[in-house]
């Protein structure tokens, strides 16, 4: 199983890349567990675990408890500031 993780804005600057492919997913493969795993392996610290971080799964805002499936795209997003 593999998922693509994308980062935007300040989180992208912090992690140093726009996306990465994760093939060794945690068990159970929840978004929250993935966030913790990615955080441990990078310079992100607590940044991904902040409640203000929005998660977009396959184009829709998702709950952190959601289970990931093969070929999913998960985006970790700082608070939106449009308009």
């Amino acid at each position, binding site marked *: 199983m593999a998922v693509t993780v994308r980062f935007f804005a300040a989180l992208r600057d912090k992690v140093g890349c726009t996306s990465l492919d994760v093939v060794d997913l945690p068990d159970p493969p929840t978004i929250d567990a993935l966030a913790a795993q990615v955080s441990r392996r990078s310079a992100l610290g607590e940044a991904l675990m902040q409640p203000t971080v929005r998660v977009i799964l396959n*184009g829709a805002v998702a709950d952190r408890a959601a289970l990931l499936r093969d070929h999913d795209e998960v985006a970790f997003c700082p608070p*939106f*500031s449009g*308009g």
Partner: protein
Amino acid sequence: MVRCEVRVSDAPLQLATLLGELAGCDPDSGAVASFLGQVRGGEGLTGLELEHYPGVTENVLRRLAHDAASRWSLLRVSVAHRVGLMSIGEPIVFVGTAAPHRRAALEAVEFMIDVLKTQAPFWKKEYTIKGERWIEPRHEDHDAASYWLQNKD
């Protein structure tokens, strides 16, 4: 079905075209309302950069436009948002509606701009004489969006 036009582009907004598409778009339209957001200068600002999530941002804006059309009696909706680098004074976002009556046209515009500010995947970076920083939404922006999202009548 109400025609909803959504554009996200790194090209300057064509204001005359956007307004022109709404004005006179339908013989039943008695009102056209719009909002234009621009890059506000001051506090050493030298420029602004807007980032988005290609594909997802457009879908969110389309859904927002259709939500507006289902809550108010509208004839046409137009949303256009810039991305990329912008200078002070440049238009960032245009939200417009055409409707039989003005109350619906005006309220739908206010709903869409209030909601998109915190619910649509865009991120603003300010460039100033002191450096650059990503902008966080203000409490007022969240309150404005909450007002519309909680009062669905």
